[in-house]
């Protein structure tokens, strides 16, 4: 997928900008607060209707305005045109229209224009909590599988309903047992779908991860990923059937029933899953050095790119937000070289373009977009 034009209206400090992009590398440059990250956010909005920053849509609307609008014109790898617009009026439902249809829901567009994002915030994937790692698999899998999007959305909804029923019992000692049983059935059913898909994903993802780690580090360090589903026992070497997964969840729900009533909340399910990242023999979050953490994160992201490209059969667009400020010159150069072999469209934000361009002998492939106070300057 390649974007050739983005029209941004009233998004953060962008009033009205028409931005033309190169199909290869785009360097977005400008001082702090000039609106660089906002351009990447506009691409994320066009890809899955949400920013990659945890913020409410109403905070994205330019101050004193009532709506934002993003319109992206792109081409699929097969050279067929794709257009999408996101129009958000304060207080109403987001309007999404694309060449695929009008009045779409977020889940309809996820995966249509695959993107891979790397920002310094994603350090949390290797450093942080299980939730950060679940979020990582969820964003990759959601772009790869509509089935997963549906399952995870419903799983989360049923979790909330189930917690509401259990919570009411804990507070008021009243319970509609048939209702709890029905909610539990569906919770287990969609949880099994989620867990099954996560198993499958990790297995397919590992080879991509190992390969990109080797490419980035040129080292013989061994890396590994292990899925740790909550309440599920499994043999690492044999494939798990969905029916087995739900049987184990049913068992867990029976064992935990009294406890759940007392605590007033759900105590099992994929909302408690984790993925262990290993380097050599140790757990990355305990053992990895600073540099190894960076290499792990970058290779997870390159692996995400290769994985999505394989399953979605569309080259993802790569968004790199301010990452070179965190890497030394040698590693930056390595990342950039690898990037150029991917033949993907890339949007990179930098505060110092000079340092960046010096690493590159051939500058003809680069498009420089300069920003100042939300305006494109040329």
């Amino acid at each position, binding site marked *: 997928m390649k974007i050739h034009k983005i029209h941004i209206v009233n998004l953060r400090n962008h009033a009205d900008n028409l931005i033309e992009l190169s199909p290869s590398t785009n360097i977005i440059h400008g001082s702090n607060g000039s609106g660089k990250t906002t351009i990447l956010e506009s691409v994320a909005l066009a890809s899955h209707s949400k920013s990659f920053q945890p913020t409410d849509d109403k905070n994205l609307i330019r101050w004193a305005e009532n709506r934002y609008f993003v319109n992206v014109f792109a081409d699929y790898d097969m050279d067929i045109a794709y257009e999408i617009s996101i129009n958000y009026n304060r207080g*109403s439902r987001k309007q999404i229209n694309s060449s695929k249809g009008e009045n779409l*829901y977020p*889940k309809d567009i996820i995966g249509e224009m695959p993107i891979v994002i790397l920002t310094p915030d994603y350090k949390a994937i290797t450093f942080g909590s299980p939730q950060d790692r679940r979020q990582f698999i969820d964003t990759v899998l959601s772009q790869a599988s509509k089935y997963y999007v*549906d399952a995870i959305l*419903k799983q989360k*909804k*049923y979790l*909330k*309903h*189930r917690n*509401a*029923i259990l919570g*009411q019992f804990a507070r008021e000692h009243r319970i*509609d047992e*048939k*209702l709890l*049983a*029905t*909610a539990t*059935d*569906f919770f287990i059913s969609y949880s099994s779908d989620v867990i099954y898909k996560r198993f499958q994903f990790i297995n397919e993802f590992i080879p991509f991860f190992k390969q990109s780690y080797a490419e980035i580090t040129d080292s013989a360090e061994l890396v590994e990923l292990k899925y740790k589903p909550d309440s599920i026992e499994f043999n690492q070497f044999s494939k798990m059937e969905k029916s087995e997964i739900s049987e184990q969840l049913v068992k867990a729900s029976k064992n935990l029933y009294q406890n759940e009533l007392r605590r007033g909340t759900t105590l099992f399910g994929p909302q408690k899953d984790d993925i262990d990242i290993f380097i050599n023999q140790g757990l990355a979050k305990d053992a990895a050095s600073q540099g190894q953490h960076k290499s792990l994160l970058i290779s997870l992201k390159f692996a995400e790119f290769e994985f999505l490209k394989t399953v979605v059969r569309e080259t993802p667009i790569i968004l790199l937000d301010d990452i070179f400020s965190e890497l030394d010159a040698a590693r930056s150069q390595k990342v950039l070289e690898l990037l150029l072999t991917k033949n993907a469209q890339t949007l990179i934000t930098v505060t110092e373009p000079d340092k960046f361009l010096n690493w590159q002998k051939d500058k003809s492939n680069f498009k420089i977009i300069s920003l100042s106070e939300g305006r494109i300057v040329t």
Partner: protein
Amino acid sequence: MNYTSESIEKAIEIFSSFPSIGKKTAQRLTYFLLRQDDSFAEKMSKVIIDLKHNVRFCSICFNYTERDPCPICSSTKRDRSILCVVEEPNDVVSIEKTNDFYGLYHVLHGVMNPLEGISQDDIKVVELISRLHDVEEVIFALNPSVEGELTTHYIAKLIKPFGVKISRIASGVPMGSSLEFSDDATIARALEGRIAI
């Protein structure tokens, strides 16, 4: 405020309390009304008052009606052994338009939603159960939301002991969408391919 008349302001306020009508549309409607003859306003107020005076719930199916029981419940041409359970009176209109269903309806007036504290007592579930004695089949046609699914299966559990055949419409209606916004052909297909629960 911004308007030169308090009456205009009140009219705009009332119009903008309608679903999917914003301030701008409310203003347009108000100015439209002002441009009409007096007779238009009189006719309109009478229509609104009649609507509230004459329309009530059918005591059998809980659809809106002017005479109780409603024309559908009192029709001799309908198959009284089949009940179609829907969320809102709107949904009866959507299904009637397909001309494909000849049974009776039951309007629940909502779905269960534990998160928002809406339980079976808040919708017409007991009323549904009291109708089951001469019914052979119950078809659930609730919207394809998580709450619609939960309500369908919950009520199915409750009525299983009555020995009626229970099914739900096929999920031809896209998830997150609603019957109200689906075309006739989609609803007809969904009714056709109903699935036993």
